[in-house]
């Protein structure tokens, strides 16, 4: 438990990926395989079953510390995390427990669900006496099913791949398969011998950079290919050894969410890798992104949803043909190969993102203005003679996005943030006017500077009118310009609309609350956007 706690704290203390990698690698290298297996299990977002309710834990802690319930709530409000609060209030002088992670899980966590309440209480109280505060904190997280770690699954995967000496994509593929937190499975995951020819392995994506300079600075338009910037999920379609692998940019395999695309891609010749976008698609036009999200959120797609939200793989590049890496070829040549490969497909399942005819930069600019009407995010500008690069290398692929939509809304409530922001009020609710009332329109938590956040935090504390659980209602006084990427009808929201990716673009200190937008003006915007799609 010491090594695991130290690892957790190291991951928690840094935001730098390289430091997280170092911490994870040295942990995986130094602990026994069964401990590493359990850590990996927990870090992969797999949970132990929730053995004890938070309420029960809280009342035992109150009893152990001889403190009234209200005082524990007061502490919780200050700390922002119940597991941590309880770890700090239970009295104990222990310098910590030396048992390993797998021992702790076997002896103190796994047995809990089978015990009756009295035995559970005994085991928990004993653990409080044996553990120090950071260990108690992790113990609470583990038994209440709320353990989360400050490292992305991708980083954990990378660290393990480094330790095992195999490629990260191969490791990701293996982690997606079946394995249990045992020493044997851990050693199998790290086996180097079988790693060589994993057919699922994707290429790193080439990422476009936002174009901030003038279009004209790109030179002659004849050197560039212009496409729509599709608003879907960037994905790589791989067909090798008779199998299809569909990877999202987040290095997640999404075969299960899009079985019809996987079935269609079976027709691709072996040794083919395509780059493209998965889109919700009907009658040759994209459907709004929220439709696609409904598919993405399900692991197993029911028949209904299948028909309700048809999807397409919109290919725009090819990296591999007949097993040969084509990435060094110029864009034009790759494009020709792509056309050959996809010509025989049902265009409702697999199609190619056609270049737009643009004779001048002026044409490109007006395309960008039309983007919302096409249901796209803007345009992509790709240099015709460029290779397929790795990562966000600037210069050859540019994205030129349409302007976001904006409204001015009034802050009506605030809540504390998470993690690093847990002691500050950083998550806000916004309303627009409907008569004399403010109707909630969106929640947002990004876009402000640290200084602005602290200023809003002080405002919230001083002008709180009421409290509902963790939410503080505030005097409706502050106005913010919210920017968002889309707007859609919603029955779940009181206002009848939902905004996509709302964030605070500007604090409108110049605007009195009374002059913020109205629900009517927001509904008019929705009608406008819907009419275009």
């Amino acid at each position, binding site marked *: 438990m010491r090594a695991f706690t130290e690892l957790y704290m190291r991951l*928690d*203390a*840094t*935001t730098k990926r390289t430091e997280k990698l170092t911490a994870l690698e040295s942990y995986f290298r130094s602990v026994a395989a069964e401990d590493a297996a359990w850590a990996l299990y927990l870090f992969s977002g797999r949970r132990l079953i929730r053995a004890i309710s938070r309420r029960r834990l809280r009342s035992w802690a109150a009893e152990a*510390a001889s*403190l*009234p319930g*209200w*005082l524990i709530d*007061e*502490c919780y409000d*200050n*700390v*922002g*995390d119940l597991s*941590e*609060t309880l770890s*700090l*209030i239970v009295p104990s002088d222990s310098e910590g427990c030396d048992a390993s992670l797998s021992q702790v899980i076997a002896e103190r966590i796994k047995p809990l669900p089978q015990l009756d309440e009295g035995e559970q209480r005994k085991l928990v109280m004993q653990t409080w006496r044996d553990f120090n505060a950071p260990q108690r*904190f992790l113990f609470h997280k583990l038994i209440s099913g709320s353990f989360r770690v400050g490292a992305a699954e991708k980083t954990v995967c990378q660290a393990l791949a480094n330790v095992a000496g195999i490629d990260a994509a191969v490791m990701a593929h293996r982690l997606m398969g079946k394995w249990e937190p045992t020493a044997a499975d851990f050693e199998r995951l790290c086996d180097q011998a079988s790693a060589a020819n994993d057919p699922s392995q994707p290429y790193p994506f080439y990422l476009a950079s936002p174009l901030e300079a003038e279009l004209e600075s790109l030179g002659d338009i004849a050197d560039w290919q212009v496409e729509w910037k599709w608003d879907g999920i960037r994905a790589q379609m791989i067909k090798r050894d008779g199998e299809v692998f569909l990877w999202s940019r987040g290095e997640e395999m999404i075969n299960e969410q899009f079985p019809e695309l996987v079935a269609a891609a079976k027709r691709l010749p072996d040794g083919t890798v395509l780059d493209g976008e998965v889109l919700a698609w009907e009658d040759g036009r994209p459907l709004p992104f929220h439709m696609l999200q409904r598919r993405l959120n399900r692991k197993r797609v029911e028949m209904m949803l299948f028909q309700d939200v048809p999807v397409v793989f919109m290919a725009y590049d090819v990296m591999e043909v007949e097993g040969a890496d084509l990435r060094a070829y110029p864009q034009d040549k790759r494009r020709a190969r792509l056309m050959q490969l996809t010509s025989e497909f049902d265009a409702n399942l697999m199609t190619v993102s056609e270049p737009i005819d643009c004779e001048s930069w002026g044409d490109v600019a007006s395309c960008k203005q039309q983007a919302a009407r096409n249901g796209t995010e803007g345009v992509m500008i790709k240099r015709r003679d460029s290779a397929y690069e790795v990562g966000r290398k600037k210069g050859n692929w540019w994205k030129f996005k349409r302007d976001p939509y904006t409204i001015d809304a009034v802050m009506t409530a605030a809540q504390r943030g998470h*993690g*690093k*922001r*847990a*002691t*500050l009020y950083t998550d806000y609710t916004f309303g627009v006017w409907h008569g004399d009332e403010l109707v909630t329109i969106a929640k947002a938590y990004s876009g402000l500077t640290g200084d602005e956040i*602290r200023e809003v*935090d*002080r405002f919230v*504390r*001083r002008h709180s009118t009421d409290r509902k659980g963790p939410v503080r209602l505030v005097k409706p006084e502050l106005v913010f310009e919210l920017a968002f990427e889309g707007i859609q009808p919603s029955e779940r929201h009181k206002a009848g609309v939902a905004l996509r990716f709302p964030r605070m673009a500007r604090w409108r200190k110049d605007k009195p609350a009374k002059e913020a937008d109205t629900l009517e003006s927001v509904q008019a915007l929705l009608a406008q956007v819907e009419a275009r799609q």
Partner: protein
Amino acid sequence: MADLIEQRDKGLYCAVGDFWIDPWEPVEHAVITHAHSDHAKAGHRRYLTMADGVELLRLRLGSDITVRGAAYGEGIDINGVQVSLHPAGHMLGSAQVRVEHKGQVAGVSGDYKVRPDPTCPTFEPVPCNLFISEATFALPIYRWADSSEVFAEINAWWRGNQAVGKTSVLFTYALGKAQRVLAEIDNSIGPIFAHGALMRYEAAYTAAGVRQPPLTYCEASAVRAQNGAALVMAPPSALGTPWMRKLGKVSTAFASGWMTVRGRRRQRGVDRGFILSDHADWNGLIEAITATGAEKVLLTHGYSAALARWLREMKGIDAATLVTRYGDEDDDADGSPERAAS
């Protein structure tokens, strides 16, 4: 009967003696508990403070102030009211103020801690009828370990950094905490450098007889020349500034009671948080307050409402919150120990 000390617009006021304690606006006669900025304001006509604190007050407020220094326990008559200063254990020159008139005794704690500190005499409870106490860390999540344990951690962190060639940069409040750390840290580990904000108080500490290790003004090139062997002491305001980048490879740490909470530790963006405070923890506050035997308790700073309710419900003491301008929850909401620790 009116209390001997009451809350007025400019601060805590003793009407019979016509003097103020730690007032936040200019007054005629101010008794100052200690030199931290939320307690010691400029602009008063006359100051009274503990003798060891006189020089610190001058450094902060100017050498031209009119200030009288008193020894701990020395009786002073102010307009017929008996006033004396008693150890608060918070920092050099920090005092509780005892005020007596016609058999009634009031105590004003200023900031205090009950555990020993090598830079000043240990806190002594002052029996009184009315006790005005600070409550900065008045929640049961705040319970300090022995300072020997904390310093063992700090020393180990410094040695560990040396082993990998990283300079150790320790952020502490510049006045009080920094000198306590210097007095308790194992200075045989390596050379110690200090940011200018800390250097200015060294002479006053040494003159008051506080043991301080040799300290060098922190010049980046000199620090780098130590190849990671050095400890650099700096105020929190230096965190994340260009000054820090010049030091080369560093490991950063913050020493404050606020480091108890993970969220605040993460907010600071340092590699390590050491839980080291010059305020009383939850148990210390209760111990100190009950030791006075006061029948009425008024609380300032921090989580005063929680402690007041606890004292009423669990101890039957008449306790309430005083709204002052000392670092309260709103001001240190960003966990800023610069303000909160003062």
